[in-house]
Structure formats: C-alpha cells, structure tokens
C-alpha cells in the first residue's frame, strides 16, 4: 500500500494568531512519525488541516503526489487518510460492532436504493466487513463487548474502539491525536505494539500526536518537534529529545 504524505509550507492563522507557520513535514511510506511540542505549538491544528477540518491559509497538502489541500473531511477519507480523535467520539447508542461496521469504506448498503432493493449488493460486503470486524475485535481485545452499546465502554476501551474504526476503513495513513492519553501504561504499550505490527504487516503509515514520550518514543521512526507553529527539530527520536532547542521549548526558556 503506497502512502506518502507531505505538507508544503502550510500556514494557518486564527484571528491574529499564527497557529501554523510554514510547516513542512513528510510521512514516508511504512513509517511511524510522531509530532511533539508544548501546548499551543500547533500539533492538533496540523492534524486538522491534513484531515480537512481546517483550510490552510497558505501551502499545500500532498498525498501520494495528489494535491488534497482544502478537501472536505469525507473526501480526504476517500484518499485513504483516516483520523482518530483525541477525545473518543463513539456512536454512543450503537453497538461496538456497528461502530466498526460504520467505518467500512464505500458501503453499497448505505445508499437508499441498494439498501431497499439490492440486498445482494451489500449483504456480501457486510459479510466481509463482519469478518474483518471480528479480526479487529480480536486484535484489540474487544470481543467480549462487541454487542454492548459504545456508551457502556470504559475509557481505555473507547480509545481502542477509536483505533478499531480507523483500521476498519482500510487506511493507508492513520492520523492519531493522542492515542494513549489517559490509558494505563500496559494497555498503552499494547496499543503501540499493535501499531507497529500494523505497519509491518499491512504496511500502514502513522502520524501520531502524543505527549506520553515515555511510552511512544521507542516505537517511532521519526519525530518532528514543534513550537509556536514551527517545526524546530526533526530526526531520530533520541536525537530530537536531546536537541537543546526542544528542551528549551518545553521548559519555556
């Protein structure tokens, strides 16, 4: 699966504040890239620009060479970029299984005509999706709760469901906003193990915003450090966290 994301000089302003100032990043195929930086450094804004929730004022977002700048969120999804939310947003009154099935890409059963008159068109698809959903449930250890309302899950399970939905969508690149925040350490390591194995087996790429450096750092290939809307350091994890500029930005000089 090919996946190559680049942002070129992406700039985004809110009122008088420049949230992103000419940001260039690249997520290479089959890689796990991490974005770090103190509060207000622009990490989530960058995710929102890439996922189509904000339009950048300047610059471009390229995915596999296509210019996807300013596309709407549901159009971005179609390119294979899928995002997760910092605070999980499950469909609360639906079962865990339905939450997963909803993430299926271009389900023919989601059109009125097919739903009513062409069951043969979507039943097959639904069956495949169900098989896949079971794999995902097993992978994320959510089998026991598959027929529970999403509203009844624990905080950690909701985080997993958020990731599960992204996996169901046959992504090429997953944008993750704090996947392990508020998750206990052993589960957090499990989540990161999953991410690495997905990269290795399905060859997915990840762009991860996370503060839990203690947990995540060991798993990633490359780190971008941001401060005040700019990229201030990039490279191998060990290099970036010992970069004096990064330490300075965190400590607030």
């Amino acid at each position: 699966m090919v996946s190559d994301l680049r942002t070129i000089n992406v700039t985004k302003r809110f009122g008088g504040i420049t949230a992103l100032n000419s940001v260039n990043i690249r997520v290479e195929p089959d890689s796990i890239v991490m974005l770090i930086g103190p509060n207000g450094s622009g990490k989530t804004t960058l995710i929102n620009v890439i996922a189509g929730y904000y339009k950048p004022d300047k610059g471009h977002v390229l995915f596999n060479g296509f210019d996807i700048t300013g596309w709407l969120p549901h159009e971005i999804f179609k390119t294979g970029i899928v995002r997760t939310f910092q605070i999980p947003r499950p469909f609360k009154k639906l079962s865990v299984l339905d939450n997963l099935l909803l993430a299926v890409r271009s389900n023919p059963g989601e059109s009125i005509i097919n739903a009513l008159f062409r069951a043969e068109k979507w039943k097959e698809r639904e069956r495949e999706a169900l098989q896949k959903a079971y794999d995902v449930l097993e992978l994320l250890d959510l089998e026991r709760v598959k027929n529970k309302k999403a509203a009844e899950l624990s905080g950690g399970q909701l985080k997993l469901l958020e990731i599960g939905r992204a996996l169901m969508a046959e992504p090429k690149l997953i944008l993750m906003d704090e996947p392990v925040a508020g998750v206990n350490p052993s589960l957090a390591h499990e989540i990161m193990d999953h991410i690495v194995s997905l990269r290795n087996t399905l060859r997915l790429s990840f762009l991860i915003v996370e503060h839990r450096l203690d947990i995540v750092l060991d798993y990633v290939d490359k780190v971008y450090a941001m401060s005040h809307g700019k990229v201030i350091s990039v490279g191998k994890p060990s290099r970036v966290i010992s970069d004096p500029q990064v330490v300075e930005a965190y400590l607030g000089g």
Partner: protein
Amino acid sequence: MIDILRIIVDFTAFYSIYLMLSVSLNLEYGYTGIPNFGKVMFFAGGAFTVGAIAGRMLAPLAGIDLSKLDYCMNNVYVGSLVSRYLAQHAGLALAVFIALVIAGSLVGAFLGWLASYPSIRLREDYLGMTLVVSGELLRIVSLNYDPLVCGTFGAKTPNPFSFLSGFAMDFTRSAFMFTIAMLTWLIVGRLVKSPFGRLLKAIREEEEAAEALGKDVVKVRMKVLMLGSAIAGAAGALYAFYIGIVHPSDYAPLRTFIVWVMVIIGGAGNNLGAAVGALIYLFVDRTLAIAKTYMPVLPFDLNYLTYVFLGIILILVLIFKPEGLIPESLEVREEIREEASQ
C-alpha cells in the same frame, strides 16, 4: 354491526394517514436527529397538489370548459361532475388516484429539498423555528392565492372511488390507503435495519466522527428530509382524497404537534414505536370523537380538552419516559452474523 364496521373502516383510513406521518417524522427525528417542526408543510404540499390539480385536470373530461366559468366559485359543482364521470371509468379513476398520490409525494420531496438548505446549516433551535415559520408562510399564501387551492373556499377533490358506493366504496378506499401505509412502514422498516439506517443513527450521534469516516453528512440529511417529506406528501394526498376537500386552514401547526406526540409516546428511533404511537393517538382521538356524540352537551368543545390532555401526556412522557413506550433497540445483527460464522 355495520356501524362498527364503518367505524373500523374510518379508523383504518385515518390510521393509514397518521402512520405515514409518524413513520416519516421518526425517520427524520428518531433516526437522523432532524427536529422537523414543520411536518404539516410537507403534508400540505401533498394535499395541495391534489386540490390544485385533480379538479382542474379532469374537468375537460367531464365536459366542463374551465375558460367559461370561474373554477373556484364553482369547484364543488365541478368536483361532483368529475366524480360522476370517474364513476363510469373505474380504471382511469384509480390511475388518477395513484398518479396524484405519487405527484403529492414528489411535491413533498421537492419541499423537503428546499427545506434541507437551511436544515444543513442551522442549529436545532433555529431550524425548529424556521420550519414552523415556513409552514405558516405556505398556509398564508394558500389561504390567499386562489389559483392554488381556491383560498378560503377550499378546493373540492373528486372521489376516485365513486365507481363503488356505500360500504363497498369506504372499504375499498380504506384498503387502498392501508396498503400504501403498510408498504411505507415496511419499506422504512427495511431501510432502517440496513446499513443506511445504521448510518443515520451514526450521524445523529456524532456528526464529526461520521465525517471522519468518510460519510457525506450533508447529503445524507438531505436525502432523509426528502424521503420523509415525500412520505408526508403522499399522506397529504391521501388525506385530500379521503376528506373530499382541501381547505388551507386545515393544515395548521397543530397537526405537526400531533405527529410529534405519536413519535415521542411510541418511542423515537424505533419503527414499531412510530406505528404504536400513531395507534394510541388515534384510539384516544376517535374514542373521544365517538363518545362526544353520546355525551351530554359540554359547555365547551371537547377537542380542546383532548389537546390539553395530549399536551400534558406528552410532557409527562418527556419527563418520566423520554425513550417512549417502545424504546430504541440495540441492533445485534444476528442474521448476518450467523451467515458469517458458517
């Protein structure tokens, strides 16, 4: 005996109309979360289609030259001549009936498409107000603009079942109406059980998450409002034929309220709930209407007391059982699961 049968036949006709309305509102509000406070507008759209077209279209066939007489001043007369003509041409009569019900639903869908423009952009409170106001705007225009449904005169609708008479006619008409209503109910029931129905609930629960999963929320809302309004339009057309006259003042906001009562009491987000809600409402309403004829003369119109009761019941349900009598159920997808495990 025939009295009871007549009551049942009359009940069935009304039930068909209200079932369609509550099913359509449930689709919009219960499943998709669109608070349609202007239901009566789409209902009126269907009824006005019949009122505006039926008499005028069929008059030449009955040998009336509309250029020589004022249709609105004479529409009762024209209507009865047309009915008499249709009595001789059963096939044509039924074709006209079906065609106009379809036309009514198309007009409903068109109005739904128009209404979907603000409904996509507005918050729920603003949307609620907008739909109420739009419904009233349509009523004021129809009351004053004669070429539509003859304003305050009202437009007589021809009776497409006049080839029958007496109980046979009432029975056949109710049977037709009930068939259409049941078909609607079954179709919507099938729809909400499908992946499309699942998508509707997802949009209701978390709009942004649905977008993040590639769903075109705007388009889906638009489709739902058009479909719901098409059903309401068809119900309006049936109502126009059943009552025999289309009078704009009949399409007051109170009708919207009644449909909400049915959906909330029955249980929003459950297709069976919509059917049960309509049944309960109609049972109370018809019982009171019949009881009225046997009761001593009250110093006021009993209908008003009915509305007071309905209002109180609605508030009590909202407070103590907001999920309704038949709450939304969790979809377990047994059938497909079994097939998958094979």
